[in-house]
């Protein structure tokens, strides 16, 4: 699958731009703050209905304007797919596929798989469990639409239950009968989500371990373990027993929203004991495993977005990535870099249809050498 062109209107720093892409490699150059990442974010919007950076749509409207539009023509399995995303302030975001608007945006997720490698991926290692859940949830959602529905329902019931706990705290009383509908739903959804998460990890891990071995060339063994309260022998009973603490804390602290994925190197936590190099290898391997598991499940190569990674990776890891580009293992590639000469040097020996673009003064110019 690939993206043929992109049109932005009043999206972030772009008043109105149109770009035609190469089916293989696309490079965007520009100084810091020129809007390279915004361009990748627009592609992220078209594939996954939202920004990779900031969740609020209103932050992406050009300063002083009322709306933004993102349009793109994709081709997937020889079918043209034209996606249009419009956001108008104080209105609901609308996304349509081939002119037909979606009733639920979640229906779009998974149609156009995408993998983004970006500088803040390091949060997955150094940040809280939320970052890791976000990564795995995003991946499972793109491969299993039922999972996304379960997750949406879970989060909604959780919000309602927490609002209820807050109210009980204010009124200084607890009514178990009112909590029961939520408890029942949360327990059964927790179990269903847990099973899907566990099954996905089993499928995902071999891909990950293979890539880690190839990239690091080192002998340490890696592991990812899925930690969840659902594993406890009697989950529904434990859930019921945690009510007292829930009332005290005014929020639900038991359930799959507390799951975590522990990354380990030779049985030691990566966060504490991994070197910078090991952490980078770990991250790239997670993302490459994501790419190849999507490719296997979807039967098409996902778009691969590399945001400013030449700056963050060393030669060895760049070589590993580029070797895969050269062997045509990836599909369409979008790369941003503040230093044109570096990217051109890296891509020079690769036989691929490569297009260079320079971003300046909120415009995107195709390089003449193209």
């Amino acid at each position, binding site marked *: 699958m690939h993206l043929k062109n992109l049109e932005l209107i009043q999206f972030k720093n772009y008043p109105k731009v149109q770009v035609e892409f190469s089916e293989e490699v696309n490079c965007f150059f520009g100084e810091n703050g020129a809007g390279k990442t915004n361009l990748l974010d627009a592609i992220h919007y078209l594939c996954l209905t939202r920004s990779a950076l900031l969740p609020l749509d209103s932050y992406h409207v050009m300063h002083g304007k009322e709306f933004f539009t993102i349009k793109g023509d994709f081709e997937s399995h020889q079918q043209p797919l034209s996606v249009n995303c419009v956001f108008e302030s104080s209105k609901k975001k609308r996304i349509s596929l081939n002119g037909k608007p979606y*009733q*639920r945006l979640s*229906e779009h997720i998974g149609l156009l798989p995408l993998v983004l490698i970006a500088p803040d991926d390091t949060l997955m290692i150094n940040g809280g469990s939320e970052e890791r859940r976000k990564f795995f949830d995003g991946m499972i959602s793109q491969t299993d*639409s039922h999972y996304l*529905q379960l997750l949406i*329902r879970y989060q*909604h*019931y959780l*919000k*309602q*239950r927490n*609002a*209820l706990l*807050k*109210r009980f705290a204010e009124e200084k009383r607890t009514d178990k*009968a*009112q909590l*029961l*509908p*939520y408890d*029942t*739903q949360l327990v059964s959804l927790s179990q269903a989500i847990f099973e899907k998460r566990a099954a996905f990890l089993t499928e995902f891990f071999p891909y990950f371990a293979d890539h880690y071995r190839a990239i690091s060339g080192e002998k340490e063994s890696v592991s990812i373990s899925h930690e969840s309260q659902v594993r406890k022998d009697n989950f529904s009973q434990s859930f019921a027993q945690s009510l007292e603490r829930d009332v005290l804390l005014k929020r639900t602290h038991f359930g799959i929203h507390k799951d975590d994925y522990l990354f380990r190197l030779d049985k030691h936590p990566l966060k504490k004991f991994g070197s910078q190099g090991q952490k980078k290898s770990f991250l790239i391997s997670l993302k490459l495993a994501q790419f190849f598991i999507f490719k296997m499940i979807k039967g098409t190569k996902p778009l691969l977005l590399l945001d400013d990674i030449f700056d963050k990776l060393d030669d060895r890891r760049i070589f590993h990535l580029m070797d895969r580009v050269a062997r045509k293992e990836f599909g369409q590639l979008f790369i941003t870099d503040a230093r044109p000469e570096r990217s051109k040097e890296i891509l020079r020996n690769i036989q691929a249809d490569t297009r260079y673009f320079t971003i300046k003064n909120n415009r995107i110019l195709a390089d003449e050498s193209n």
Partner: protein
Amino acid sequence: MNFSSKLIENAVTEISRLPGIGKKTALRLTLHLLKQKAPVTSALTEALIKLRNEIRYCAICHNVADKEVCSICESTKRDKSLICVVEDLPDVLALENTNQYSGLYHVLGGVISPIQGIGPDEINIASLMQRILHPPSGTPVEEVILALPATMEGDTTSFFITRKLKDHGVGVSTIARGIPVGSELEYTDEITLGRSILSRIKYSAE
């Protein structure tokens, strides 16, 4: 919008408060009313004032009523052993228009949603329990039909009511959910289709 008359401006402002009516439509309606003979306009205003002052809500089911008890609860032709629980007034009208139901109703006036500050005490659940335990007509209630919206809040409310009724020997059912009549499977959304295959029913060829 600038009006040469303060009177027109007032009328436009008031009319444009109605749902689905903007300033332009409000102006068109105002000018239309001005062109009519005086009694036409006063008939409208009188109807509105009367509506506001004299409308009542049925003491039993909370439906709109002209008297203390609504015409449905009062009717001798309705099956008083059946109560259909709905979220709001338009739902009663929708069900009545099907001509397929001859029991009574109970209008909750909302569904449980703690995020919006709506708990069981904010909607008419206590009065539902009351009329089931002590039927005003004397006829015992045999079945409660839950006809609440197919949303998570609707489901939560249904669950809550079902639990409350558990030990009172009343049957509880819920309206079927599935594919609209006359529509194609391929255009039905996945969740509805999934639900309808799970809760499939026996086909009768009699």
